[in-house]
């Protein structure tokens, strides 16, 4: 599709107009707190930070919330269960390419039959404005996963070229939004050359990388099931689940029922769960299918590097580096483990 250019001032007014006109239920974008970044509701364009490194949680939370009611029911004779799929219309501003790729994986998982409508409905009601990541965080290796930039997954994609953004239009919906709210011009050859240049420069800023092409990871994992790397690294694992909670491609959940205090109605909800937590694979009779830290750690590395890829044809890790930033004992970053396994094999 076509490429446009919009001045930063005009983009800000576009955001303000989106907020003011109220066509969408909410306008969400990257904001800052405690020196970190997060996606949150915007009340004016001044809150939006588009030159951030990484957000604490990925935008996945908009499609697969931390806690989500899935059915409601009555207690007693006639339970009358009803499905719940709450979704509001959202413009989501400032999603990095790796997070867009991660959303593609989440969609693949949830649309695989039988499809889960909740995530898909939310996705369909969200206009996604991406932004290229020009200053990656110190744990990011998304460039070596091939996700420094992306050609898909967005309605509009911004690249900061100084005073203005080049806007790649990804969908008709994006084109329409831009036409109705923004004052964009066609991008010139100079604009596009500048975009390629800043993208190129950003590649030099990644501090972490894979020591092999990403598509070799499954083969390496196949050969190293019993490698001591897993035991050695996982010895200090706190089983805290942080690495999973912050991951844009982790989609596992737990399901629980709760009832109102009157005990006459209730709801079933799902909430994020993590395969790194001790009891994730434990069953009622007490048997735990991944009882030790090593097996849980190994499982996560395989899921990220191999299982999801084989099942959905999309990598289970996009290299965003959040897990590496979140892990207090510095063992969670898949690239580090894959590199060690490569060395050992």
């Amino acid at each position, binding site marked *: 599709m076509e490429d446009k250019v919009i001045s930063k001032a005009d983009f800000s007014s576009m955001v303000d107009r989106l907020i003011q006109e109220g066509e969408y239920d909410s306008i969400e974008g990257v904001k800052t707190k*405690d*020196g970190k970044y997060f996606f949150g509701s915007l009340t004016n364009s001044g809150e939006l930070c588009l030159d951030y490194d990484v957000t604490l*949680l990925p935008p996945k939370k908009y499609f697969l919330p931390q806690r989500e009611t899935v059915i409601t029911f009555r207690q007693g004779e006639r339970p009358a269960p009803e499905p719940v799929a709450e979704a509001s219309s959202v413009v989501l501003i400032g999603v990095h390419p790796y997070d867009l790729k991660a959303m593609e994986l989440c969609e693949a998982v949830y649309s695989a039959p039988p499809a889960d409508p909740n995530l898909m409905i939310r996705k369909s009601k969200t206009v996604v404005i991406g932004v290229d990541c020009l200053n990656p965080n110190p744990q990011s290796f998304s460039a070596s996963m091939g996700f420094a930039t992306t050609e898909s997954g967005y309605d509009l994609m911004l690249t900061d070229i100084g005073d203005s953004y080049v806007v790649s239009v990804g969908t008709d919906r994006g084109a329409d939004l831009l036409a109705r709210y923004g004052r964009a011009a066609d991008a010139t050859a100079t604009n596009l050359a500048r975009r390629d240049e800043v993208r190129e420069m950003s590649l030099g800023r990644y501090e972490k990388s894979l020591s092999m092409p990403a598509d070799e990871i499954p083969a390496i994992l196949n050969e190293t099931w019993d490698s001591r790397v897993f035991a050695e690294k996982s010895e*200090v694992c*706190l089983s805290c*689940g942080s690495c999973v909670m912050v991951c844009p491609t982790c989609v596992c959940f737990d399901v629980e029922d709760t*009832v109102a*205090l*009157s005990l006459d109605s209730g709801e079933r909800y799902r909430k994020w769960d993590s395969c790194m937590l*001790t009891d994730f694979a434990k069953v009622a009779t007490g048997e735990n299918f991944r009882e030790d830290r090593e097996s849980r750690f190994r499982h996560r590395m395989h899921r990220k590097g191999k299982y999801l890829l084989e099942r959905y044809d999309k990598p289970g890790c996009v290299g965003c580096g959040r897990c590496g930033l979140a892990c207090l004992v510095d063992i969670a970053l898949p690239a580090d483990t894959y590199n060690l396994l490569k060395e050992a094999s």
Partner: protein
Amino acid sequence: MKPKVAFFDFTSCEGCQLEVLNFEQEVLQLLNLLEIVNFRELMTERSDDYDIAIIDGAISTDADVARIKEIRERASILITIGACSSLGGVNCLKNAYPMEEVLSVVYGDAAGYYNTIPARPVSAVVPVDYALPQCPVNKAEFLEVVKALLLGKKPEIPNYPVCAECKMAENACVFDLGRTCLGPVTRAGCNALCVTWGRHCWGCRGLVDDPNVDAATDVLKEHGLTAEDIVNKFRIYTAWTGGSE
């Protein structure tokens, strides 16, 4: 038949009973489901006929020991609420010193009038069916447990660290902000309340079942704590190491 519930307090600040009284909205509904037969802080009537005993406060005198044993004999379900009854709580801070010393620091020459024993959780004296630690008790969790019991369900008390909930709450990690935290080994269930309000985790829900204390200790050291600081940090809520009945 509504189950008969009795509340009993031991060595504590009574904040947990107050939290239960703080169910302003829910309290009337609760009374439809339960018959409260004993709640000294709230009511004058008392009865020794109850099914569920809800205990707050640690055991810290010989009289406490005798009294909790009696309660255990009468109750078919015994629940401890709050850090004091479930873990020993801050009361166990005194266990770091000889009992004669704490007595004389506080009462001076009159120390001889009084009795005290090292503070301990209820579970150190009698078996406990469900323990709901947290300082003060988590109202929402308390309600969930009451409902679960009414439905005949086993209450779910999380067995993973506060970190997991802290990430879900999208807090900046306390360690990244240059301070330290017991979240990595503390049982979740509070939604990382303290971190969300700009503090760190003190460990008031006690340790998870299988804490990696060695690794957590190394993390604390790396972030500038001395061995003594670390002991001090852990002793606020997890000083009791005497095991359980």
